[in-house]
């Protein structure tokens, strides 16, 4: 009864046309675009891999073979584990964590500077110039890094000409170009949450700590960082999720021997033609990223609610 009351109130408040629009638009978004596609993908990943005409037939039975394949490899192989895929998976997660840490280290000082040191026009200009690089396509950004880190790129030419290196260093093969490119790609997503959090900090607290004789690092450690923790966590969450799910940068900047987990998913779809396995891998990526983020939030004692502000 209360439910129909609720609807009546909703329709009364908005008028029939608007209420209908709201319900249809939000309903379409929630079910047709977010929830059902994910459920369909989950369903797809726990079924045998058959061509489309056989969907729903006997041969399209439920199975966990694709998840098993990820861990143990094919039945024919002699290895006890699917070494390639498992290695790539853990390397991707590790590299994503590493990139997140780089971004925190880079962005925390800048965000603090923006929020409490820079003033007026200068800070506006800085904010604007932070945004400019993100107008540019992700692929073009990766391309820019490929140019400067190439074997005859600016950095190698410079290092060789001043004599630090005898011969060009292969930044691409050693993944340095990839890390630099990925950290670059998500700087903005790290700076703004931290900036928002730090900005709300009362400057008097810092002044008080300074008057009481605290060195600068203790001021940051005891006052600024605890206050900015929700911002730092939401920045980290975004950067970590997007780095782990990045595809363009690893495709362009990745060395010939280093694969990203998303590239394996991509291969599963486009080259192997095994959609079921591709979706199983996508689920694995999604679930493990979410679990990792939740565990980290638990460790850092951050609540989801305060992070989302």
């Amino acid at each position, binding site marked *: 009864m209360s439910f129909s009351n609720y609807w009546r109130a909703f329709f009364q408040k908005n008028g029939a046309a*608007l209420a209908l629009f709201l319900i249809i638009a939000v309903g379409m978004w929630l079910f047709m675009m977010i929830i059902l596609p994910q459920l369909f993908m989950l369903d797809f990943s726990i079924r045998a891999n058959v061509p489309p005409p056989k969907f729903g037939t006997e041969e399209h039975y439920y199975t966990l073979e694709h998840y098993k394949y990820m861990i143990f490899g094919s039945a024919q192989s002699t290895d006890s584990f699917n070494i390639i895929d498992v290695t790539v998976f853990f390397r991707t997660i590790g590299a994503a964590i590493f990139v997140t840490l780089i971004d925190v280290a880079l962005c925390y000082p800048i965000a603090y500077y923006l929020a409490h040191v820079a003033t007026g026009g200068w800070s506006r200009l800085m904010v604007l110039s932070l945004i400019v690089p993100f*107008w540019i396509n992700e692929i073009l*950004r990766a391309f820019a890094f490929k140019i400067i880190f190439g*074997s005859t790129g*600016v950095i190698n030419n410079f290092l060789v000409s001043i004599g630090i290196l005898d011969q060009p260093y292969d930044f691409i093969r050693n993944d340095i170009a990839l890390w630099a490119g990925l950290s670059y790609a998500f700087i903005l997503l790290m700076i703004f949450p931290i900036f928002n959090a730090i900005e709300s900090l009362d400057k008097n607290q810092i002044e008080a700590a300074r008057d009481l004789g605290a060195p600068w690092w203790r001021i940051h450690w005891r006052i600024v960082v605890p206050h900015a923790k929700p911002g730092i966590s939401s920045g980290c969450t975004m950067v970590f999720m997007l780095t782990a799910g990045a595809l363009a940068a690893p495709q362009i900047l990745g060395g010939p021997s280093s694969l990203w987990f998303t590239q394996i998913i991509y291969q599963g779809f486009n080259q192997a033609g095994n959609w079921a396995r591709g979706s199983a891998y996508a689920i694995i990526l999604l679930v493990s990223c979410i679990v990792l983020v939740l565990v980290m939030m638990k460790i850092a004692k951050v609540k989801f609610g305060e992070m989302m502000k």
Partner: protein
Amino acid sequence: MIQGRIQNFLVIGFVALFFVYLFGPLIVMGLTAFNTSGFPRVSPWECFTVEWFDVLMEDTRLVTGVRNSLLIGIGVVILAVPIGLAGALMLMQIGPRLRPWLYTVTIAPILVPGVVLGISTLLFWDRIGLMFGAGEDTIFYDGIFLTIVGQATFISAYAMLIFIARLQRFDPALEEAALDLGASHTQTFRKILLPFLRPAIGSAAVLAFLASFENYNTTIFTIVSSSTLTTVLASKVRYGIDPSISALAVSIVFLTLVGAVLYEISKRRETRRARAQMAVARGEATEVKKQRPFLTEPAFILFVLIVVAGLGTVYFSGTVGVEECKIIVKEQRQAEIKRKVERRQQQQMFQSAVDAQSESSSDQEETQEDSKVTAKGTEGYQSVFSPGNLQGEVETEAEEEEPVKGTEGYLNVFSPGNLVNPSSDEPDEEKPVKGTEGYQNVFAPENLTDQVPAENSGN
């Protein structure tokens, strides 16, 4: 005191380095678009040119990709902005127990890897299509439709965040007043809420378009057999890069900068107008000055003039004298190569002196013999290198390349130590060799004799 100054210095240094990291790659990439070098690089700088922009225009795959991207961008704006608006309005009205759930579910697509969104969209519509028994050419398998839906999944969430931020400043009393005065709900929405949200609708549309235009992770799965700008770019970048991609980046940056400046100008006009209206309301002024049309705004005219002048200068200096400059660079390269050749020849003469001694006493090495044979062969090429064949004709360049590649090898042949082929990992390392005019005398038989050094020093 001193410590404070050092600290200050460190902070400024860090900020400066950060901005170098932020802009350095983009500036370098921008510069490579104007260098004639076939591999995108800044040093060695060859000639200033705009030829890569022409190359860009002639790339039909890219042009198709841009067209599809524009189409998808417009589709995403049409789909995502209303959905985002509906989401925001719904979130404002829904009960406090449901709100966090709705918020979490609608925000989640921002954090879900784009790859996952792409795959799920593809699979979902594939299954729906199957349920309806639709054929391959229906909308369920159309790359553009799938991409619009896939991208709108998370772009709607961006739009929703923008609307929420704006709605938090909305005064519900306005709506109530309108309703009390007898307006219908639809009228209230159209006359009160929508005008209030207009700036947010504008920014949401711009953001949605930009996000769609640059999306890759989702698009690569949903686009199926067509292509967008990003997928074309990605395949170009992965299989061999050339400066026309930098030229594209320069164009995109330029367009966005122009857009930003125009936006800034129009925003200033808007604030000026609002201020004038406020003044009237306070009774300080009697009328709002009539606004000049946008096209005669001084700031706008100045901006257009600067842009036109700048583009003209760049275009002029990028087209005039490029060929001459290329020739000069070519000659410099040749001179450099010639010097190398001379050095090698000297080594080789020294070597042959040593060989002459060993020849009398022992058998020649096999490699040495081979090299002699090929060396004889080179005489046949001489006519190829005669200046008449070369006069700046593009068609001959391809032909040239074959024999010339060889010549590089021939030079080395003479010193057995050099026999390991100096294979270069960059394709255009061969380019300097293209201009072969400098070689003619190298292959003249008399060069192989003792007179060579004398003759070369005479040059």
